[in-house]
C-alpha cells in the first residue's frame, strides 16, 4: 500500500510542474464529467495533451477511458467541464468538428460497414475524386500502401465481412493515419493484433510523435505502455488518479495505481500435473477452407493451449467442432461421439465455446444482462417451458459477484458495459451451461491486468474442478504462463506440440512460422 | 320534425364504373338534400367487402336508418349484415350486385349481366357469320363477371366461334393492354376481341392499334362508358356497338327510395335495366358527356 501512495505523491509533483508548462497544451480537458442519467461514468477529469508526446491512459475495465476518449473526439459531449484547443475554448457537437480540428479516434470497437470493401471503408466520407468521379483506382492503391505499412495484406477489394478481426482492426487504424491529424487517439488498438503487426503499429506511433503529433494511447498491455508512453494518466472509477512520467513506472506500479492496492502474481502457480483421462477426442477434423485433418485430445484437469499466427485457422477449427461451420471428422466427449452438425447438441453434450468476437457473436448488445446471461442455457436454466425470472435475477446477481462484473445498475443493457465487463459477462454465460470442456478464444483480449489475473485464476479453478480447458490465444506468454501443453497450428494444420520445459516462446514461434520444424515435436512428449 | 335518414353504401371508386357509381350517388345526395329539407342522404364508400360490412354497422349504430341503398361489394358476404339492418326496420334497396337472399330487399334495381354477355355474343355471331377466332378478357373474379362470361359462352355454343383464350385483366385498362399484346403475340389470327368492361376495352384498342394488325375486325366492350358510346356514334369500324350498364342506376335507385319514404309512393319489387345493344341509331340516348364515366 505504501508504494502506491508514494507513487501517487510523485504524480502530484508532476502535475505541479506542469502547472507552469513551457510547451503550451494542444488540447486541454478542464474538469470534464459525463453522466448517463443517474450514473456517473467520468467525474471532474482535467488533462493536458502536449504535442510530440505519447500520453497513455490506463485504468481498469470500466474506469471510463473510452468514454473520456469519445468525449475528446466529439462523439459525446460532456455533462460538465470544457475543452480547450490551443488555449481556445471549443465545443465538439459532432465527430467531424473534432476531425476538422485535427483529432482522430481509433475506436475500441470495430466500426466498419461489413457490406462494403476495405478500400471503401477506409475512405468512407472522404473519398478521393478525379474529374468529378470517385477515384477508386487511386483509393485502392493508397489503401494497399497504407495497409502494407501496417503489415496488413488484405486486398482493398475484399468485403470487410470476409476479413479477419485483426485485419479489420488494421483497416480501422489505417483510417486514422490517412490524414495528418494533430492528435491521434488509439483506444485498445492492439487487442486483436499479434506479433509484427503490433511492432509495426508501435513504430508508426513513434513516427507520429516525431512528426510532432500528440498521441493518446489506451492499452491493457502494460508492456506496450511502458515502451511507448512519455506520460501515463491513470483513471479509476471515472476519476483521475494522477499523471506520471512514463519511464518512472514499472508495470506492477501501473497495475497498483489502476487497482488501488497490491496485486498478486499475474499467473497462478502451476499445479503438479495430475494428467487425467481423455476428455475430448477430436479425430481428422476438417473445416473446408480453414483446417485440415486436425486430431488431438484434451484431458481432464488439463489446460490445453492453441497457438498460431493470426489466420492459422484456430477459430474456425473450433467453430467447426461447435457445429457453427460445416466440418467433417469425429468428436468424442468421454468416449461418446457428438453430433457436430448441431450447435445445440454440442453445447448440451458439454462443450462450451467463448467466441473471440464478443460484440458481434457473443452478446445481444441491446438486450439486458439477464437474458444475455441465460441465452445459451435456456433449457438447463429454465426447466420446462417457462422462464424463471427470479432465478434468472439470482443467477445474474451471483454472476456479477463471482466474476466481479462492474456495473452501475442491473437494468443496463449489455452494450453499455465496458469491454472488459462484457467479456466477464460472456464468460459467465458460457459457464452457465456447466460444460465439461471449456474453449476460450482469446480470453483476455482487451482485459486489464487485474482482470486478467482473475480470469487466469478462474481458468485454473475450472480445471481443478475436473473440467478440461482449451485456450486459444495470440499472446504467447499467456499460453506459456497458464497451459499444461500447447498445440501449434499453421495454415490450418497442427504442426506440433510443446509441453513442460519445452514451452518456450522460441519453440512455439518456430512451429508457428517455419517449415523446418513442421510436423515434428519440439522437445515435447507425445 | 325528425329528419328521415337514407344511407347509401357503395364500393369505393376502384375502377371506372364504380367511380361512376360514386359520382352519381353523390350527385343524387346533393340534389335530394337540397330539395327535401326533411331528408338526409348519407353516402359512404368502402374499399372492400369487409370494410362495407363495417360501414353498415357504423351507419346503423349511431342512428336509426329509415332506408338503406346498397350496392354490395360481393353478394355472399353482405347478405347477413344487410339482413341485420333490415331487421331493425330499415327499408332496403339493393343495386346491381344482388344479395343471396332476395327476401331481404324491398327494392332491387340492377342491370342484366347475362344479357350483357348474350347480346354482345349475338352481335358477334351475326357479324362474323357464325365463325371465327375470339379472345376474351374478363374482370375481377365476382358473380357479375361470371354472369357476363356465362351469358356470352352460352350464346356462342353450337356456333363455329371459337374462344381461343380467356384470362383475367381485373377491369383494369393497363392489365388489359398487356394481356392484349400477349394475345396478339400468341395468336396469328384473331377475328374479334371481347372485353367485358369498357375500361379494359381502352387498353385492348391501344394494343391493337400499336400492333398494326389487320386481322382483328371487332373489339367490343360493355358498360356504356361515354368514350366508347362516342365511338359508336362516330361509326367506329372496330367498335360499332356497345351494351349499357349505366352507373347512373344508383341515382335512380336513390330517387325511388326517397320517393317511397317522403312521397308516400310505395315502390317495391325488382327493376331490371335492359342491356340492349347500343348501335349508331340509338347511341345518342346513352351519351352523357358530362358524366365522369
Amino acid at each position, binding site marked *: 500500500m505504501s508504494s502506491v501512495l508514494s507513487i501517487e505523491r510523485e504524480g502530484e509533483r508532476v502535475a505541479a510542474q506542469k502547472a507552469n508548462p513551457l510547451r503550451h497544451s494542444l488540447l486541454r480537458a478542464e474538469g470534464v464529467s459525463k453522466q448517463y442519467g443517474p450514473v456517473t461514468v467520468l467525474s471532474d477529469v482535467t488533462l493536458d495533451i502536449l504535442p510530440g508526446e505519447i500520453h497513455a491512459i490506463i485504468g481498469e475495465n470500466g474506469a471510463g477511458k473510452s468514454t473520456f476518449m469519445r468525449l475528446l473526439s466529439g462523439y459525446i459531449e460532456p455533462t460538465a467541464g470544457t475543452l480547450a484547443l490551443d488555449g481556445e475554448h471549443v465545443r465538439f457537437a459532432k465527430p467531424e468538428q473534432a476531425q476538422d480540428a485535427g483529432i482522430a479516434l481509433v475506436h475500441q470497437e470495430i466500426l466498419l460497414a461489413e457490406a462494403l470493401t476495405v478500400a471503401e471503408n477506409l475512405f468512407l466520407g472522404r473519398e478521393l475524386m478525379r474529374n468529378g468521379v470517385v477515384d477508386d483506382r487511386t483509393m485502392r492503391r493508397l489503401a494497399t500502401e497504407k495497409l502494407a505499412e501496417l503489415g496488413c495484406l488484405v486486398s482493398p477489394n475484399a468485403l470487410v465481412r470476409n476479413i479477419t478481426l485483426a485485419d479489420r482492426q488494421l483497416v480501422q487504424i489505417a483510417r486514422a493515419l490517412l490524414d495528418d491529424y494533430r492528435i491521434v487517439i488509439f483506444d485498445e488498438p492492439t487487442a486483436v493484433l499479434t506479433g509484427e503487426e503490433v511492432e509495426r503499429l508501435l513504430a508508426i506511433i513513434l513516427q507520429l510523435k516525431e512528426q510532432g503529433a500528440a498521441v493518446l494511447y489506451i492499452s491493457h498491455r502494460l508492456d506496450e505502455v511502458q515502451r511507448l508512453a512519455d506520460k501515463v494518466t491513470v483513471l479509476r472509477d471515472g476519476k483521475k488518479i494522477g499523471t506520471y512520467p512514463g519511464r518512472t513506472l514499472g508495470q506492477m506500479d501501473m497495475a497498483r495505481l489502476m487497482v488501488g492496492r497490491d496485486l498478486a502474481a499475474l499467473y497462478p502457480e502451476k499445479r503438479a500435473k495430475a494428467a487425467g483421462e481423455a476428455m475430448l477426442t477430436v479425430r481428422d477434423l476438417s473445416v473446408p477452407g480453414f483446417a485440415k485433418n486436425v486430431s488431438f485430445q484434451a484431458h481432464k484437469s488439463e489446460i490445453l493451449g492453441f497457438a498460431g499466427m493470426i489466420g492459422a485457422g484456430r477459430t474456425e477449427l473450433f467453430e467447426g467442432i461447435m457445429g457453427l461451420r460445416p466440418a467433417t471428422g469425429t468428436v468424442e466427449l468421454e468416449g461418446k461421439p457428438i453430433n457436430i452438425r448441431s450447435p445445440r447438441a454440442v453445447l448440451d453434450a458439454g462443450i462450451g465455446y467463448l467466441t473471440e468476437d464478443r460484440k458481434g457473436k457473443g452478446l445481444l448488445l441491446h438486450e*439486458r444482462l439477464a437474458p444475455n446471461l441465460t441465452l445459451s442455457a435456456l433449457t438447463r436454466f429454465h426447466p420446462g417451458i417457462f*422462464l424463471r425470472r427470479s432465478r434468472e435475477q439470482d443467477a445474474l446477481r451471483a454472476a456479477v459477484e463471482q466474476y*466481479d462484473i462492474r456495473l452501475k445498475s442491473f437494468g443496463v443493457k449489455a452494450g453499455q458495459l465496458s469491454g472488459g465487463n462484457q467479456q466477464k459477462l460472456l464468460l459467465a454465460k458460457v459457464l452457465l451451461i456447466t460444460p465439461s470442456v471449456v474453449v476460450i478464444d482469446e480470453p483476455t483480449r482487451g482485459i486489464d491486468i487485474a482482470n486478467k489475473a482473475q480470469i487466469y485464476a478462474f481458468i485454473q*479453478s475450472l480445471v481443478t474442478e475436473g473440467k478440461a480447458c482449451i485456450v486459444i490465444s495470440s499472446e504467447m506468454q499467456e499460453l506459456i504462463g497458464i497451459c499444461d501443453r500447447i498445440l501449434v497450428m499453421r495454415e490450418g494444420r497442427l504442426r506440433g506440440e510443446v509441453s513442460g520445459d519445452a514451452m518456450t516462446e522460441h519453440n512455439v514461434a518456430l512451429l508457428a512460422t517455419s517449415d523446418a520444424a513442421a510436423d515434428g515435436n519440439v522437445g515435447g512428449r507425445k | 320534425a325528425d329528419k328521415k335518414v337514407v344511407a347509401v353504401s357503395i364500393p*369505393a371508386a376502384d375502377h371506372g364504373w364504380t367511380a361512376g357509381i360514386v359520382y352519381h350517388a353523390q350527385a343524387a345526395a346533393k340534389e335530394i338534400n337540397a330539395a327535401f329539407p326533411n331528408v338526409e342522404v348519407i353516402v359512404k364508400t368502402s374499399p372492400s367487402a*369487409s370494410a362495407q360490412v363495417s360501414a353498415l354497422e357504423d351507419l346503423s349504430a349511431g342512428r336509426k336508418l329509415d332506408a338503406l341503398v346498397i350496392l354490395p361489394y360481393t353478394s*355472399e*358476404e353482405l347478405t347477413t349484415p344487410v339482413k341485420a339492418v333490415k331487421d331493425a326496420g330499415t327499408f332496403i334497396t339493393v343495386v346491381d350486385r344482388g344479395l343471396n337472399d332476395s327476401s331481404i330487399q324491398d327494392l332491387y334495381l340492377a342491370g342484366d349481366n347475362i344479357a350483357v354477355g348474350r347480346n354482345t355474343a349475338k352481335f358477334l355471331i351475326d357479324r362474323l357469320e357464325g365463325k371465327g377466332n375470339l379472345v376474351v378478357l374478363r374482370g375481377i*373474379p365476382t358473380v357479375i363477371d*361470371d354472369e357476363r362470361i356465362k351469358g356470352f359462352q352460352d350464346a356462342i355454343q353450337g356456333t363455329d366461334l371459337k374462344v381461343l383464350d380467356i384470362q383475367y385483366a381485373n377491369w383494369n385498362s393497363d392489365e388489359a393492354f398487356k394481356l392484349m399484346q400477349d394475345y396478339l403475340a400468341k395468336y396469328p389470327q384473331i377475328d374479334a376481341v371481347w372485353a367485358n368492361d369498357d375500361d379494359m376495352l381502352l387498353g385492348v384498342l391501344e394494343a391493337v392499334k400499336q400492333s398494326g394488325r389487320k386481322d382483328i375486325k371487332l373489339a367490343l366492350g360493355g358498360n356504356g362508358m361515354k368514350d366508347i358510346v362516342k365511338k359508336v356514334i362516330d361509326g367506329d369500324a372496330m367498335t360499332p356497338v356497345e351494351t349499357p350498364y349505366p352507373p347512373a342506376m344508383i341515382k335512380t335507385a336513390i330517387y325511388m327510395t326517397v320517393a317511397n319514404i317522403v312521397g308516400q309512393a310505395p315502390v317495391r319489387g325488382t327493376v331490371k335495366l335492359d342491356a340492349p345493344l347500343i348501335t349508331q341509331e340509338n347511341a345518342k340516348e346513352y351519351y352523357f358527356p358530362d358524366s365522369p364515366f
Partner: protein
Amino acid sequence: MTIMASSTAIRPEREWNIGWTDVGPFVALIVLMLIGFLINPDFLSATNLGNVITRSAFIAIIAVGATFVISSGGLDLSVGSMAAFITGITILFMNRMAPEWGIMAIPAGMMVAIVVGLFCGLMNGLIVTIGRIEPFIATLGTMGIFRALITYMSDGGSIPIDRSLRDAYRPVYFGTFAGIPLPIIISVAVAAVASFILYKMKYGRKCAAVGANEDVARYSGISIIKTRTIAYAIQGTCVAVAAICYVPRLGAATPTTGVLWELQVITAVVIGGTALRGGKGHVWGTVAGAVILELIANLMVLSDFVSEYLVAGVQGVIIIIAMLIQRFSK
C-alpha cells in the same frame, strides 16, 4: 473466486421497465378516442365501440401472429390470401360434412382450419428458412399461390357456407359472453397466450434473439431455422383462428377475401411498437395498433367532413400524425 470486493452498490433493475414504446400505442388510442368523441358523441357509445373493437379482432389476431414473425426478423405478406384460402377450405369441408354430421361439422371444420393454417405457415417458414429466400419475396410468392387456390376453388365466384350451419355458427362472431362480444374475447385470449409465449416462455427469448442478432443466437445454440419456422407456423395458426371467426361474419369465401390485409397487419404491428427489422415483439401494442386502424376507419364513416374520395388520404395523414406524436412525445 473473486479477489476483489465489489464496491459501490448496484442499482436494482426495476421489475417493470415501461418505456414509451410500450405506452405509446395506448396513448395514441386514447387521443383518437377523444378526437372521435369531439367529432361525433355517438362515437363513444357502447355499441359503436363494441362494433369497432369486435371487427378489429381479425386483424388483431393475425397481427399477433405477425408479431412473432416480425420479431424473429421475418415478414409475411401472404396472410390475407392465406386467410381467404383457409376460409375456403373450411367452408368446403363443413358443407361437405354437414349432411352427415350436422352441426358437428362446425367444430370439425374448425380443427381442419387450424391444421391447414399450421401447414400453410409451416410452408412459408420452410421456404424462408431452409430455402433461404428473402421473406418478402417468398411470401409474395405464396400470397399469389393462396390467392390462386381460392380463386380456383371458388371458380372465380364464391363459396358460401351451408344454410343449415349458418345459425349454429353465427354466435362465434355475433355472440357475447358476459356481455362481451366473442371475437373480442377470442382475440384477447390469443394475445394473452401470445404474450405468455413471448415473455414467459423460452421460445419468446429465442425469437427475440434470432431477430436481434442471428450470430449471437447461433453461437448460443439457438436454431435459427427452427425458431423462425415456428414463428411462421404460429402466424399460420393465428390466421386460421381469425378465419374461423371470420366465416360467420361474411358467410362466404371469395377471391377478394382478405385482399390487402397484409398491409393492415404489418401496419398494426409497427404502430404497436415492434421494429420491422426484428428484435423485441410487443403483443399488446400490436392489438392496440389493430384497434387504432379500425378506429380511424370508423371515424371516417362517422364524420361527415371528408369527401368520399379523400378517405384514404385522411387515413394516411392520421397514421403519420399518430406516429409523429409517438416519436416526439418521447
